[in-house]
């Protein structure tokens, strides 16, 4: 067993690496040492960075894309400074848009972007390249105050103390991440490379949301204000508030809960998507109507969603039509929000029929 813990303190990042992780304290120090202040953003010198941040955000919000390019054609110092400032501008923009769903969608796509860097860094580093692993340790220790250790003897599994692991909200949010479904040994939770990256993304998502929430700003620079206003109105045009798209009948509480989550910009776990999809198909919604709803999910991808819905409806290849899961099944998935109106039913669809019978 080998614990690599202490010497991550002496790791020197290559500057380029830091550009990919602008949320790290060490990256931030690149701008603080030049006495950068938010008011400076009013100056023309920063306009190109503001535009770059705005473009990134528009890509996230309106196209669900996160193809963002770091501009490497500069000195290392400048690259890092610019990326940190772009990151800050992005947070400012999102803060001043101040729509929960926007914040969440931004946080998700932004954390997915960083996740992509991390995966590629982990993959390109050869097996013995400890530096990149140390970056990972540093991120976890700095940002999430979790110490990661490496089990070198067994396939380079990562491990985290049980008590520390349970400090991560994901451990209580998703079944596969509950303690019971983790590999425990000798006081540690074991995670493979993919899992540690997934944990990273989830934590980073929460961290970004938290940073936006806690940001206190007296005055937002005019250029940024103008851009945020235009993004905000474009978003509001695309997302009028949801009216429950089910006849005039009662909406089953479990389905209502999903609608509520969608309006809040929350991401949905797979079983919830399945429940919603089958339920909408049952309610004779057209594919376009359904897409309209799924579009609001932060990780919406039109092609995939289209495919999945057609699959559920039995319109793909030899796939059979999926029926709406039973209340029992829904309960098992922790998606049931039973109220009085559910009395005596065993499938949410019965609530529609109940109403139609009258």
């Amino acid at each position: 067993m080998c614990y690599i813990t202490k010497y991550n303190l002496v790791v020197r990042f290559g500057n380029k690496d830091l550009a990919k992780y602008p949320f790290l304290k060490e990256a931030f120090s690149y701008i603080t040492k030049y006495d950068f202040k938010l008011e400076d953003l009013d100056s023309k010198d920063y306009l190109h960075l503001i535009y770059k941040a705005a473009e990134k955000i528009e890509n996230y919000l309106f196209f669900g894309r996160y193809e963002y390019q770091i501009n490497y054609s500069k000195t290392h110092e400048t690259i890092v400074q610019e990326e940190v400032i772009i990151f800050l501008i992005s947070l400012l923009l999102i803060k001043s848009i101040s729509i929960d769903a926007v914040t969440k969608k931004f946080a998700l796509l932004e954390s997915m972007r960083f996740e992509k860097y991390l995966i590629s860094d982990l993959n390109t580093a050869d097996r013995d390249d400890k530096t990149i692993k140390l970056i990972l340790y540093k991120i976890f220790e700095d940002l999430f105050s979790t110490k990661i250790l490496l089990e070198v003897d067994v396939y380079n599994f990562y491990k985290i103390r049980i008590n520390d692991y349970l400090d991560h909200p994901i451990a209580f949010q998703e079944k596969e991440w509950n303690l019971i479904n983790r590999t425990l040994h000798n006081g540690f939770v074991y995670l493979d490379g993919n899992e540690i990256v997934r944990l990273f993304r989830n934590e980073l998502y929460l961290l970004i949301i938290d940073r936006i929430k806690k940001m206190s700003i007296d005055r937002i620079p005019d250029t940024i204000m103008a851009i945020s206003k235009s993004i905000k109105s474009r978003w509001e045009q695309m997302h009028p508030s949801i009216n429950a798209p089910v006849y005039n009948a009662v909406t089953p509480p479990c389905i209502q809960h999903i609608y509520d989550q969608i309006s809040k910009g929350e991401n949905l776990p797979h079983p919830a998507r399945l429940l919603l999809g089958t339920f909408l198909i049952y309610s004779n919604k057209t594919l376009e109507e359904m897409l309209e709803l799924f579009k609001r999910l932060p990780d919406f991808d039109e092609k995939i969603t289209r495919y999945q819905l057609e699959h559920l409806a039995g319109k793909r290849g030899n796939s059979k039509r999926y029926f709406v899961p039973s209340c029992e099944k829904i309960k098992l998935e922790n998606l049931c929000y039973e109220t009085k109106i559910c009395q005596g039913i065993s499938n949410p669809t019965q609530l529609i029929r109940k109403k139609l019978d009258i």
Partner: protein
Amino acid sequence: MTDTLSFDSNNSGKNGKHASKYQNAEPDDKNKNWLEGIFRKYYFYHYTQLELGELINEHEFGFRLFDGKIRRHLAFNDKKELYAYIIKFSPSDIFYSSSRYQSPTAEIDQKGWIGSDLIFDIDGKDLHLECAQSHNLVLCKDCSFISKGIISKCVGCNSTRLQIIDIPCARCIKSLNVEVKKLVEILNDDFGIDSECIFVYFSGNNGYHVHVVDKNFYDASAKKRNAFAQYLMGKGYLIENLGIRRNNEGALIPMSNKILYNQGWRRRIFDSIHLSIQNHKIDDKFVKKYNRMQDANNNNIKDAINTHILDLSAKIDPNVTMDIHRIFRLAGSINSKSGLIKAFCKDLDSFNPFVDACFIGDSKVEIESKLNIKISLKGKQFSIKTGKNTLPEYVAAYMICKGIGDIQNQT
């Protein structure tokens, strides 16, 4: 010894009256009055049995007195103060928080929680043992008739208001031991808790309390403790963890070449179903073996695995583990459900609760038994007949605590 600690011995002695001026039991309840005296005598002579840590002033104490009233949120500056209280009031049950608090006497949300040992409760009742059917009794709450075995209606009056009186046997204790060992093994292997940090106590009646004193878990929140409990009980285990997934037809198939660290529940389950995994990898050999197994189980391998999980799981009460404000029976104190004490088990295999937890004196007293029953205590067998019997105090106390005998006038 100070005055407050003194035991009013004028009233004690052969006649068995240990009443003091602080007697709490109703004057006409002979059984309770007698027990209260017997308990007081035990605490007077054996107060050093009470197991108390260093920081006694940071724990909450609670007592049930013989008038049935419960007093909670009490605290004591030191052991002497506590001993004096106990001997004065001779409680029927003594409880103490595993948690330490800044102000233990405050209301729950004002106490200032510092931390707590991990506690696991294994109760004989939850094991649904077969032998319990033959030796447990049922008391009718309406006509007070006592029947043997497990029934759903009183044979005397047909009432369904029944209360089970458990009279655990040696086999019950053996089964409980097996459960304790399963729990301890998971705590060792998966949680990395050293056996030296695990303290097993006989609850005083029909179960065990397992205390884990480990700084790694001392400040764990109730939510985390609940996750520990779910883990130990094997609750919510996804079969995909075993490298098996559902294909499009809904059949469970192995994920070839998947790397899985063979530890924790995975190892326990694989060992139990005799499906071995080499080098933490789902290889061809595994797949072959799995397929054979699938055939042998009529393709219902999921149920088979779930049965194994149930067997392997620790039968703890999750509510006890997650409730950080619960007060627990103090080790060394008498359990009023049996007259036995909550006792530390140094070695589970050699521990015999009917001997090692029985501390009441052996002067003879007369007792009226409500039924014929065999009781074994302090290594002796007693065949008790309905009606009057002359028995040692410790047997009498056991019977009265169980509600199957009445103390006779001590003249």
